[in-house]
């Protein structure tokens, strides 16, 4: 169990620092727990690194057959893949385990969380902070580095800033999708796989040039699930290309705004879901 003494001994006056220290203690305990079996941990990180490359193998095989996909070169599609992988693996590390919510509900652990003086979402997020996902982020960074070498980008300060912000905004977008998908499981308890379509499916789709999709799919994954803002639209802005699917240029720079809207929507959905939740016993 986690030691929560700082929380108990702190006075009511400094509630904020004590809450924070509770979360810090939670995260720290998860992190040290993962380091206990070093060999096992190294293997897990390696496996995650490998997962990234197997994902990339699809793009490699496809470009073995063709020289451009949906009007984009190997390096350009690799860049979309890399930006998505960085964003998704970080989001997966921070909140990915939230898809275990139905299990917590079924076993009653979630009710225990509701009774504690910390937010349920905060506890869920800190319940399993999988450092091994960093392995997959490393694959993303490696591919990103290679893609940047092979693409012709006219660097400006704005584009450099966009390159740095994009994985962060993308991570926030995926976090929002994870939370929203978990919130939906308050209504559909056996529907974990339903959520996978938007989380893992969103990851798959975001890493590809949107020009290959049907227009309905393009618009749905831009304006309802903002997956286009993770990699496709920012890549267009980096390359200085107009969107072949007809979206205005300013939208390509709007990743952070999309992330904020997505986060707000996810928060709203989570609150409603929690309100709807009546416990596993009934």
């Amino acid at each position: 169990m986690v030691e929560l003494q700082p929380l108990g001994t702190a006075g009511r006056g400094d509630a904020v620092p004590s809450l924070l220290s509770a979360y810090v203690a939670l995260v720290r305990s998860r992190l040290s727990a993962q380091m206990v079996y070093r060999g096992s941990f190294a293997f897990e990180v390696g496996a995650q690194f490998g997962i990234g490359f197997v994902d990339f193998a699809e793009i490699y095989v496809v470009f073995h057959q063709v020289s451009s996909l949906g009007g984009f070169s190997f390096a350009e599609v690799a860049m979309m893949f890399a930006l998505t992988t960085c964003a998704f693996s970080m989001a997966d590390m921070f909140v990915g385990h939230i898809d275990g919510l139905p299990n917590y509900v079924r076993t009653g652990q979630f009710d225990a969380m509701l009774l504690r003086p910390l937010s349920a979402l905060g506890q869920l997020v800190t319940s399993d902070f999988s450092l091994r996902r960093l392995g997959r982020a490393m694959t993303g960074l490696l591919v990103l580095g290679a893609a940047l070498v092979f693409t012709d980008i006219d660097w400006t300060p704005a584009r450099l800033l966009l390159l740095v912000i994009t994985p962060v905004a993308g991570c926030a977008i995926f976090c929002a999708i994870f939370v929203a998908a978990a919130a939906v499981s308050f209504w559909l308890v056996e529907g974990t796989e339903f959520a996978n379509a938007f989380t893992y499916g969103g990851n798959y789709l975001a890493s590809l040039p949107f020009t290959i999709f049907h227009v309905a799919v393009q618009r749905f994954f831009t304006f309802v699930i903002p997956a286009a803002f993770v990699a496709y639209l920012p890549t267009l802005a980096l390359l200085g290309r107009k969107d072949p699917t007809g979206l205005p240029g300013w939208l390509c720079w709007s990743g952070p705004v999309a992330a904020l809207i997505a986060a707000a929507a996810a928060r709203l959905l989570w609150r409603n879901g929690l309100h709807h939740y009546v416990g596993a016993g009934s």
Partner: protein
Amino acid sequence: MARAGFSRWATYRQAAVAGMFTNTVFGIIKLSVLLAVIDETGGTVAGYDHASLSTYVWVSQGLIAVVYVFGWSELALRVRTGDIAIDLARPVDLQLSWLATDLGRATYAIGARAVVPMVVGALLFGFAFPHDPTAIVLIAPAIALAVVISFACRFLVNLAAFWLVEVRGLITLYVLTMNLLCGLVVPVQLFPTWLKVVAYSTPFPFLLQAPTDLVTGQAQGWQAVGSVAAQLGWCVVLLGLGRLVLSRATEKLVVQGG
């Protein structure tokens, strides 16, 4: 035991609907990529055209839950908790009883997981029906054999739990390699030659690519017969290997149990 496996999975209807939905979404993304490829190459690639690519995607998406290309650790878990000792004491063969349960699960998955994505996909994106009589006759046996090969592989990987404390990493690695080489992501025919050689030196293409090839017309006549014969060969080898490893493991278990 096969019937018990069937009814255990049949309890989760909502999960089945959700599974099919996700399956269909992934199918649409996969097909979009492959159709973009034939847009570039002028209509065909490695013997596939629009209709047969759609068939490949929807048959393989339908089969993934039947053949089970995901991580499976039930047996490993029983080894870790020690429940395996009870299983071994039962008067039934451990490997064959798990196989029977798995065949029951697969039968349920055909109805619950495979039919809908195939029909929806076929209606929305087109379908090429097989016309080679040999291939048509062999489709059902090929799917059954694919389930057995898949089970035999998973059984083997799970047996590692007798020697390793934590098998999660190993299972992840197995699923990873298998998913790529079984033709789940891209048809094996599209692989560069070196990767094709790697794939066909493993049993993995016989999990998904081989039964799918019978439907898409990639394997016809004697080629289809040869493919099913190879599946049969892998079944014998992998089940045999599983028995061998299990007997080694139980010897060790007896020693430890004192």
